[in-house]
């Protein structure tokens, strides 16, 4: 038997989840009180799970590295959340949302999981409204919707440009209520550094109190990891500075398989990099592509003048502008999916038509929609984004076009989970962006928020009961057990090893170099030679890091450099696995583009015959090559077609 058992229930697609729910075990209220659950992470996934589990009666301990659970990076999501409510009467349905998600993911996700996601999506909106989430409304008082890239219906709910913030505050308030009741113990400024296993089962974690530096042990009957994505392996991304892959990586080292690590989403509309002092990239919402037109100059000499700052974009007449998305994709135009838009921008810039000093930017121009609709309409739609853009760049987008460029944004890959969201380690669950489950090779806009809340409010609280029902006789986990001592020692040894290197360069120096290798060779376009080269370079930088990094400060005090060092140490390993996975997958699908697998026009070419599987990597020890397991994807309800947006 393969170690991968996806536990997809039998029966027709639309009945799987209901059948499964009736078949799985339930824990009695009296027993729930005796069972403890650790939830690591307080984003949409973690906060919704922790609150819901505590409401059910479990004893929950929750962790985040920020000073408050409300600051998880879910807060930064702008655009919206999808749900198959069909409030617009535009013939949306659970099946259509399911189908769009499977197709958008380029047929590399599990049908059963995605269908369930679509099925519970309407409940999410009900729940959020009941919590007081102030979604945008129509004058009649009912909820309003937006459209997002890659779909033909309006199913996106939003709260201005701050949807993630409002959804997270809703979940955080539910969490606060449980903290006040004593059902959740909240550990802020605590970072999970390792997973503790006893007899093969997840039984707790080792965490560092980031203020005192104390290494602490926490036990539980089950552990849920909801620690977000690993996009910061690229150094520059739209993730928060502290976003990391470390918790998931420690789980990997303890036996949880990593799935599809090479599926990374590059978002086409971010503010471009300026100079070399930058530490983070800012997203400009995808919704802007509804009213902005993307272009670069037709003439190379114009582009060169723009690069030298000798010309203003407004001086280039329409006939000299190349609206390359409209030219290449007449039917979707500026609204092609993210991966397609990103690659097209890179193609123009690589050909020498980039429009900023670095030659790495294209224009997103609102002139045409301002002429058509008036400035007020545009201001009402995007005012806060325009203000943000102006604060950062000092350019007024009402008067001159925005400059944008693609940036790393989201990781579809993550910890492998079965239908119950359990990893290959019994009792260890993974939810939200941290798992791989629903988005295949490319995530549609407004679907990550949906997935995080679906996992936390409506899926995990049911499926975890099936496991815990067999644990009711297990007494409170004793953190004095030798397994805790051993794991704690490994954690302390590693911290001391890092700290005692006392080299000459700060952590950022190495992280930036890693990021550059990743962006150049494992970024928007990949090929076998470049990937092999990248693996070699990553290994070299990692070796240097372990010899020459300098971590100042004390171990028993707040020490942000020490925190960073631990995360970056793991990013080297994650980056290497990412490159390895990209090397194995010699096809182009979704966000993963292999130059060897393209049509004559340079469009992505999938290879269903060879690659209709989930790549699942198993850790085999330090310095040993990981082993690839394949979970074959079976499509019974949709027909695989080559995506076309022409």
């Amino acid at each position, binding site marked *: 038997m393969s170690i991968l058992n996806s536990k997809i229930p039998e029966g027709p697609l639309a009945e799987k989840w209901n059948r499964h729910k009736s078949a799985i075990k339930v824990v009695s209220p009296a027993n729930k009180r005796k069972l403890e659950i650790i939830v690591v992470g307080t984003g949409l996934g973690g906060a*919704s799970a922790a609150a*819901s589990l505590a409401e059910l009666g479990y004893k929950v301990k929750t962790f985040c590295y*920020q*000073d*408050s659970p*409300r*600051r998880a*990076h879910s*807060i*930064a999501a702008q655009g919206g959340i999808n749900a198959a409510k069909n409030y617009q009467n535009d013939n949306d349905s659970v099946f259509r949302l399911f189908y769009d998600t499977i197709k958008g993911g380029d047929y590399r996700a599990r049908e059963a999981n995605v269908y369930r996601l679509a099925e519970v999506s*309407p*409940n999410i909106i009900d*729940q959020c*409204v*009941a*919590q*007081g989430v*102030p*979604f945008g*409304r*129509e004058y*009649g*008082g009912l909820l309003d919707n937006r459209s997002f890239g890659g779909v033909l219906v309006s199913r996106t709910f939003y709260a*201005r440009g*701050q949807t993630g*913030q409002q959804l997270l505050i809703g979940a955080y*308030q*539910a969490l*606060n*209520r449980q*903290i*006040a009741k004593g059902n959740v113990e*909240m550990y802020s400024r605590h970072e999970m550094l390792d997973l503790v296993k006893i007899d093969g089962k997840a039984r707790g974690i080792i965490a560092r109190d980031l*203020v005192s530096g104390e290494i602490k042990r926490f036990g539980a009957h089950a552990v849920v990891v909801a620690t977000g994505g690993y996009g910061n392996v690229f150094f520059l991304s739209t993730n*928060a*500075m502290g976003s990391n892959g470390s918790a998931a990586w420690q789980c990997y080292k303890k036996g949880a398989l990593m799935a599809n690590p090479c599926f990374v989403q590059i978002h086409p509309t971010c503010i471009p990099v*300026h100079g070399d*002092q*930058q*530490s*983070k990239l*800012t997203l400009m919402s995808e919704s802007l592509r509804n009213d902005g037109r993307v272009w670069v100059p037709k003439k190379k000499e114009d582009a060169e003048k723009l690069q030298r700052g000798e010309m203003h974009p407004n001086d280039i007449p329409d006939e000299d502008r190349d609206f390359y998305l409209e030219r290449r994709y007449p039917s979707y135009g500026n609204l092609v999916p993210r991966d397609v838009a990103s690659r097209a921008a890179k193609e123009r810039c690589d050909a020498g038509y980039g429009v900023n000093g670095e030659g790495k930017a294209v224009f997103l121009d609102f002139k045409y929609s301002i002429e058509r609709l008036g400035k007020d309409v545009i201001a009402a739609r995007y005012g806060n984004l325009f203000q*943000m853009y102006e*604060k*950062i*760049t*000092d350019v007024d987008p009402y008067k001159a076009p925005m400059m944008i460029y693609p940036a790393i944004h989201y990781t579809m890959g993550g910890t492998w989970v079965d239908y119950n969201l359990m990893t290959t380690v019994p009792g260890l669950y993974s939810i939200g962006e941290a798992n791989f489950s629903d988005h295949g090779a490319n995530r549609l806009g407004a679907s990550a928020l949906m997935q995080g809340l679906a996992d936390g*409010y*409506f899926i995990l*609280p049911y499926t975890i009961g099936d496991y815990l029902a067999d644990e009711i006789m297990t007494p409170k986990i004793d953190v004095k057990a030798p397994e805790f001592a051993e794991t704690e020692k490994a954690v302390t040894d590693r911290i001391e090893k890092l700290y005692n290197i006392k080299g000459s360069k*700060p952590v*950022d*120096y190495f992280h930036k170099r890693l990021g550059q290798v990743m962006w150049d060779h494992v970024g928007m376009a990949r090929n076998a030679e470049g990937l092999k080269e990248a693996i070699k370079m990553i290994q070299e930088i990692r070796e240097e890091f372990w010899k020459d990094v*300098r971590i*100042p*400060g004390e171990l028993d*005090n*707040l*020490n*942000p450099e020490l925190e960073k060092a631990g995360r970056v140490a793991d990013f080297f390993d994650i980056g290497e696995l990412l490159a390895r996975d990209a090397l194995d997958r010699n096809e182009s699908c979704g966000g993963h583009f292999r130059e060897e697998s393209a049509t004559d026009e340079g469009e992505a070419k999938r290879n269903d015959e060879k690659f209709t599987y989930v790549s699942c990597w198993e850790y085999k020890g330090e310095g040993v090559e990981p082993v690839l397991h394949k979970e074959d994807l079976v499509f019974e309800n949709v027909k695989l077609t080559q995506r076309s947006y022409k």
Partner: protein
Amino acid sequence: MADKILKELKIKVWRQKNAKSKGKFETYVINDISTGSSFLEMMDILNNDLIEKGIDPIAFDHDCREGICGTCSLHINGRPHGPDTEVTTCQLHMRKFKDGETIIVEPWRARAFPVIKDLVVDRTALDKILQAGGFVSVNTGGVPDANAIPVARDDAEEAMDAAACIGCGACVAACKNSSAMLFVSAKVSHLAKLPQGQVEAAARAMNMVSKMDELGFGGCTNTGACEVECPKSISITNIARLNREYLKARISR
């Protein structure tokens, strides 16, 4: 529009090893900063400089770096979030400063926000206020359809205005009484404006205000300093609404 280089800046910054030790100002010189860099990128560069020189870098709080998580919290040249309007520290850019300038950087100062290290303070008191009542008491599941209760668009918009608070604490740092009234009123208004939150509105106001007093925040004397420094333009009219709800709760007691 084009970025310039600030050749030299002096950064006079509060250094404090931990909660127990006494702090003091130190001044560092930093060169060649682009006006297009953000204030925190300047701090990153300064810190990497310090590390290479063998000096402990300056601890400061930050995470999203796009003005939404509320983590960043620097008091710059006498103002919470520095010399720009409607921005958080992470959105403040170096074009707001002049070459040769001395920039003074301090932590939030308030009794309820003890310093943890350098510029990092403990703001868990804000979480505790919200735990006292800043929620709607509903469990997951068993709620009505989202469109079952229509909400007037203006009410939803006003609720959203108040809900935009990022919990940064700049209002407290700006207030000479260290009052958290703006923060509390934002939450009370957000929920009171929606039918879902109205049921518990009065009790919520009462519980949150008592908690605020208990945690060592000062009283509100209507100076309006909070509104000026709030990066999300939370209006002090919310405080009037809070007072109304609070009064209702007192009367019905």
